[in-house]
């Protein structure tokens, strides 16, 4: 097959801060073991709210990871982004000395679905409790979707092309795709990903209106997509950042090419119109495969969106079959996010991180809490399944109607 993109975008670094691990290594260990990090919502001010179970990040100490001057002016979702960026750059072996030499060659792309709710709530409480003179000036930037892109670029001195994708949960994949396009257009390095912190009281209240939200109080049963017991999704915080660079340049500098971002496409089918998301996903998958120059049979594993709403689960199972044909009924499908929850825009980036790690380890992580699958899917449950994995497909849908598909190739496969 001809190579569709002469300047391939490689993933050379991954940094994860997730409910099941505040480093890429601990995230993978928990993910491949199928351990669940879902638990009661313990955040102050949330105790009385009807959301009972979530994926909280508990092993992360912001002050140990980020300088105080950045902490005072940023929300928790940006703390995650700053810390995950450090992990990703360290993984890619790109230090301040490397990026400092050519600051305009490094850019940042993030996606965010909910912005800085905790910071915003604190300042709004000052506004209505004490008056406008008591609102801190950093409120003007901290709550905003774009805060993480801005603060990552400022803190690391990156002056290359920067952007923010606001396209729902699926935005996490769109941000990685945007990074790949920037690299193909000539930027050396893009730090890309998504982090979210939707577990402050104000943010939780905003989510209570979603009929797809699971209010089940049992962490074992709250989020079980593709089963008869599916009763919605459990939200999560955290996320991941990737270092994306031109594959040739990465190999030249001796960096480890962990994967390539081979193809992507996105569609839109309307808020909560889950039946229609079937054709939206099919179109996204087909276009992503075409973008990657990839045949359906080449897909070795699918990381499902796995919303946990019966109608949406059915639409996704059918979409996989429609788009991949007979292969769609044989290909292993997994949804490790049932062990950590859905981190909105961060969810598909965490899935992409898991996909890269799965390809590296030749191991498909299981789908925690899910036992009896009621759809025609080969869903990996119980324990991780060994498999030779060269190509992974990651799917994502947003509550507001975005659908997105990303094809990732194993790093070693791309060696030319």
């Amino acid at each position, binding site marked *: 097959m001809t190579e569709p993109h002469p300047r391939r975008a490689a993933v050379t670094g991954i940094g994860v801060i997730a409910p099941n691990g505040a480093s890429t290594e601990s995230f993978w260990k928990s993910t491949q073991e199928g351990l669940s990090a879902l638990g009661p919502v313990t955040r102050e001010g949330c105790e009385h709210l009807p959301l009972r179970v979530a994926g909280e990040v508990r092993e992360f100490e912001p002050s140990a990871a980020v300088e105080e001057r950045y902490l005072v002016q940023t929300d928790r979702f940006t703390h995650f982004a700053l810390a995950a960026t450090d992990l990703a750059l360290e993984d890619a072996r790109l230090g301040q000395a490397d990026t400092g030499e050519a600051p305009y060659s490094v850019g940042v792309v993030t996606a965010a679905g909910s912005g800085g709710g905790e910071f915003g709530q604190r300042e709004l409480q000052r506004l209505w409790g004490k008056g406008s003179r008591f609102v801190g*000036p950093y409120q003007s930037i901290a709550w905003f979707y774009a805060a993480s892109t801005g603060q990552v670029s400022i803190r690391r001195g990156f002056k290359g092309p920067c952007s923010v994708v606001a396209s729902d949960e699926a935005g996490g994949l769109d941000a990685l795709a945007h990074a790949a396009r920037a690299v193909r257009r000539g930027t050396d390095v893009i730090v890309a990903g998504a982090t979210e912190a939707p577990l402050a009281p104000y943010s939780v209240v905003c989510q209570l209106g979603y009929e797809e939200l699971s209010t089940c109080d049992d962490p074992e049963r709250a989020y079980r997509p593709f089963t008869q017991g599916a009763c919605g999704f459990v939200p999560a915080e955290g996320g991941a950042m990737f270092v994306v660079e031109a594959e040739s340049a990465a190999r030249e500098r001796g960096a480890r090419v962990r994967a390539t971002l081979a193809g992507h496409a996105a569609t839109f089918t309307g808020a909560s119109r889950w039946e229609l998301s079937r054709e939206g996903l099919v179109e996204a998958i087909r276009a992503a495969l075409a973008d990657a120059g990839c045949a359906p049979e080449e897909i070795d594993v699918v990381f499902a969106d796995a919303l946990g709403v019966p109608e949406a689960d059915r639409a996704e199972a059918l979409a996989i079959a429609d788009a991949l044909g007979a292969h769609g009924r044989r290909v292993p499908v997994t949804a490790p996010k049932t062990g950590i929850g859905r981190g909105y825009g961060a969810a598909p980036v965490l899935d992409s991180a898991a996909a890269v790690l799965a390809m590296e380890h030749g191991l498909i992580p299981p789908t925690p809490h899910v036992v009896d699958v009621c759809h025609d899917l080969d869903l990996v449950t119980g324990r991780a399944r060994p498999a030779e994995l060269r190509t992974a497909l990651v799917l994502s849908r947003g509550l507001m109607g975005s659908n997105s598909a990303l094809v990732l190739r194993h790093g070693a496969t791309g060696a030319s």
Partner: protein
Amino acid sequence: MSDRITVEELAELMKKSAGITVASDDLQRQYDIGFDALGIDSLGLLGIVGELENRYGTPMPPDAERSKTPRQFLDQVNSALLAGA
């Protein structure tokens, strides 16, 4: 609370509002160093001004938030406090 803002209070506000820790005797020695070199951006300085206005119950001169150095800043805010006294 004294009737003029000391370097100690400025150091405390720099930590509280901008997350920058500088010992007050170090700050005294760096009276003419730029706020930018100390790591305080314009929003950080604006936060310090707002905090002072709330503490002292009096508006600070508009130029206070445009001060480049601790010396300029203390001169500005203390002359405003003196004039208001």
